[in-house]
């Protein structure tokens, strides 16, 4: 397959964390997956062994996706086979994200996040229990 060439003069990335990838060059398949329990508490008490993804349906429910195969024939002509970018400046790349300079074939990314907030009751009449 005839591909375009990506030319980037300068890239600056401040921080990369949580399974992020910075790739220079072509790839064939990219698959990213992340899940997170985002817990905010009024009191800063966190045990290291808390959290079970399986009890929350948000982490197991199937996501309906469009089929990636297209039925119509597609022809691409690269009259100028160069993608040129002078500068890229990124503050942060996080949680199974990808910064990719180059071409790929198939990209598939998925993320699932569950937010939980735990607050103290203001008074007993307002308290709502789980």
């Amino acid at each position: 397959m005839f591909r375009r060439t990506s030319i980037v003069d300068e890239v600056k990335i401040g921080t990369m964390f949580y399974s992020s990838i910075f790739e220079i060059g072509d790839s064939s398949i990219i698959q990213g997956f992340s899940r997170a329990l985002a817990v905010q508490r009024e009191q800063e008490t966190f045990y290291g062994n808390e959290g079970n993804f399986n009890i929350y349906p948000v982490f197991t429910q199937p996501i309906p996706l469009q089929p990636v195969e297209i039925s119509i024939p597609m022809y691409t002509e690269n009259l100028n086979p160069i993608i040129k970018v002078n500068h890229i400046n990124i503050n942060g790349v996080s949680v199974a994200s990808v910064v990719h300079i180059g071409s790929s074939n198939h990209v598939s990314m998925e993320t699932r996040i569950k937010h939980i907030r735990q607050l103290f009751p203001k008074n007993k009449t307002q308290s709502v229990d789980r």
Partner: protein
Amino acid sequence: MNFHVYNRDLSVGSIRIIGVSSSSILMIGDTQTIQLASVFDTPPESLIIGPFVPLARE
């Protein structure tokens, strides 16, 4: 139906991004297929007001 694409000149001066997060992708290049999915859950039940109870363990 025929889908014919002509890629002519593509030149970008500068890209400035605050964050690429949660299984996102920034790609300078071409790709055949791309599939992105995201589930984000913040229902009213996720706000727990009451005495502190740790979450279930694995």
